[in-house]
């Protein structure tokens, strides 16, 4: 009963609350939704695959650029360009996985790091395609079967529907055969392989998923801000995503949401003391790592669990 009501209430809240927000807060909420899409795949790879990937900015950029170029240069309908962004990013993830996913740990980390830098250089240098450092501008707003998401509120709903769908997908995936196999890989790749799990195959699937979600997020971003440049898709972003995921908590859906919300809301929290932003953020990261090994979401879950247990007795 409780399990059914809570998500329902959440969705009702999501539908109503944007109506009270001012323009600025709606935009914050939209970016949060985009970050959720961007982070879901990565969270699976990091939290359950147990591997660092610093390639997320690549997929984000691929999705954004594909969508932007298709709609501005070739006048492809936005929805087709949006899907193409996801597909292309997923395909690149698949191609990359063959050489890269054979590596583990730090070696995988540095290989993804390299891919991210190479992508950035290519985007800057191949200006015939990407517009180089100036980027792509005048990207059309999102439209679906003739309906244009002109107002921020309408786009807000679209982004959050996609964000919730990707969260739901991730959650169901974790409770499926693939999810259980992933957890197995994380505790011991060898043991999982002995039990018949094809670890490489599985990691490839998750990596492709990270690619697709990253690409879709990139496309959503491009059609929201209408201007993209190489500066949006840097290695710093990739590293930042891993950092905020570990603050939010990598192994729960809530962790992804918290991480996303944290990264968009945090810069405004300190108000006029913005100079201290990074210092405060660093301290929060360090404290979370020290006292909440499963991130803020993991910590909250434990507390709720404890509370529920106490009230039952």
């Amino acid at each position, binding site marked *: 009963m409780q399990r059914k009501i809570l998500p329902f209430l959440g969705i009702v809240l999501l539908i109503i609350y944007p109506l009270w927000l001012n323009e600025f807060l709606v935009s914050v909420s939209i970016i949060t939704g985009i970050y959720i899409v961007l982070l879901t795949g990565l969270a699976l790879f990091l939290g359950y695959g147990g591997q660092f990937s610093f390639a997320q900015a690549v997929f984000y950029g691929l999705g954004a650029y594909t969508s932007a170029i298709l709609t501005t240069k070739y006048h492809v309908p936005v929805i087709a360009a949006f899907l193409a962004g996801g597909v292309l990013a997923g395909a690149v993830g698949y191609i990359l996985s063959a050489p890269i996913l054979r*590596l583990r740990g730090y070696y995988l980390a540095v290989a993804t*790091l390299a891919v991210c830098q190479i992508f950035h250089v290519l985007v800057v240098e191949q200006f015939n395609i990407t517009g180089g450092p100036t980027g792509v501008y005048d990207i059309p707003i999102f439209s679906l079967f003739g309906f244009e998401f002109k107002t921020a509120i309408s786009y807000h709903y679209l982004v959050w529907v996609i964000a919730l769908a990707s969260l739901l997908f991730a959650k169901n995936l974790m409770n499926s055969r693939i999810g259980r196999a992933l957890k197995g890989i994380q505790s011991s*790749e060898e043991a999982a392989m002995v039990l018949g799990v094809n670890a490489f195959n599985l990691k490839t699937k998750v990596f492709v998923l990270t690619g697709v979600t990253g690409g879709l997020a990139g496309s959503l971003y491009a059609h929201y801000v209408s201007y993209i440049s190489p500066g949006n898709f840097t290695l710093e972003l990739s590293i930042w995503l891993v950092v905020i995921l570990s603050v939010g908590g990598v192994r729960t859906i809530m962790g992804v949401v918290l991480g996303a919300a944290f990264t968009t809301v945090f810069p405004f929290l300190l108000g006029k003391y913005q100079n*201290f932003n990074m210092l405060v953020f*660093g301290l929060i990261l360090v404290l979370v*790592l020290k006292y909440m090994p499963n991130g803020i979401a993991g910590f909250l879950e434990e507390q709720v669990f404890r509370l529920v247990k106490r009230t039952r007795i």
Partner: protein
Amino acid sequence: MTETQLLQFIFSGITIGCIYALVALGFTIIFNTTSIVNFAQGDFVMLGAMFAATFKSLFHFPLIMAVSLSVLSVATIGLIMERVLIHSLKDDPRLFASVMMTMGASIIINAISILVWGADPLSLEAFSGETPIRIHGATLVPQMFWIAGGIFLVMILLVIFFRFTWLGQGMLACSMNKDAAASMGINVKGMIFLSFIFSATIGGLGGALVAPITMATLDMGGIMTLKGFTAAIIGGLGSVPGAFLGGIILGLIEALSCGIISSGYRDAIALSILVLVLMLKPSGIMGSKIIRK
């Protein structure tokens, strides 16, 4: 391309390569004891450069005093970082928390540095003049010899330390098997503590040595971490000669691809070669053991 140009690119490649090698050596020491990759390693270099420039150019200390004070300050920061952040972490076989902790340290160090020094770069005059040395038409700055000398000194000391001293062997033992090392009477936590101080010292020295060439800037930390990590991986994570070789190779590739192809593609070419090395020999050029997870 003429011979002179080629020689020039090789010179600048070796100079920058020596710097990468110093950072890579810092990675190696911490990795050898803890299996942690310290993402704040480049920030030690940045701090070394900033402190040296501050002491010399702002406070007008004599050179030797400025450099030793800067190395000492960075070593102290490494010490504080280990005590406060790493020391009390629970043992985590995946090292996730520890590695993220070093990222946290990097964020905090950068945040404090920008509050202390502001965003402007500081300069430090070259240790023995600016008159370039000419060899076959190519020029070499004298500071290069300081850097090369510094790295050779550090490397020889490290090889002796890890091969022939009880302390060095103890550090290596910690990285291979912490429990076994502890049961042989090695103070594992103590070794980890020492390794952070050592690598901060080396980072600080590297920073003080490169500051005359690159200037002391706050954003050099991230770049140094990236390049040093890459160099360490190319050479084989955990190997002292490997770190040196990896650094030089990376520097040379960068300089040559800058000269032959285009400066814009420099990073892409260097990193493509890195990926290629990883494909062919996943444990790096000098690496022997395959590191898992």
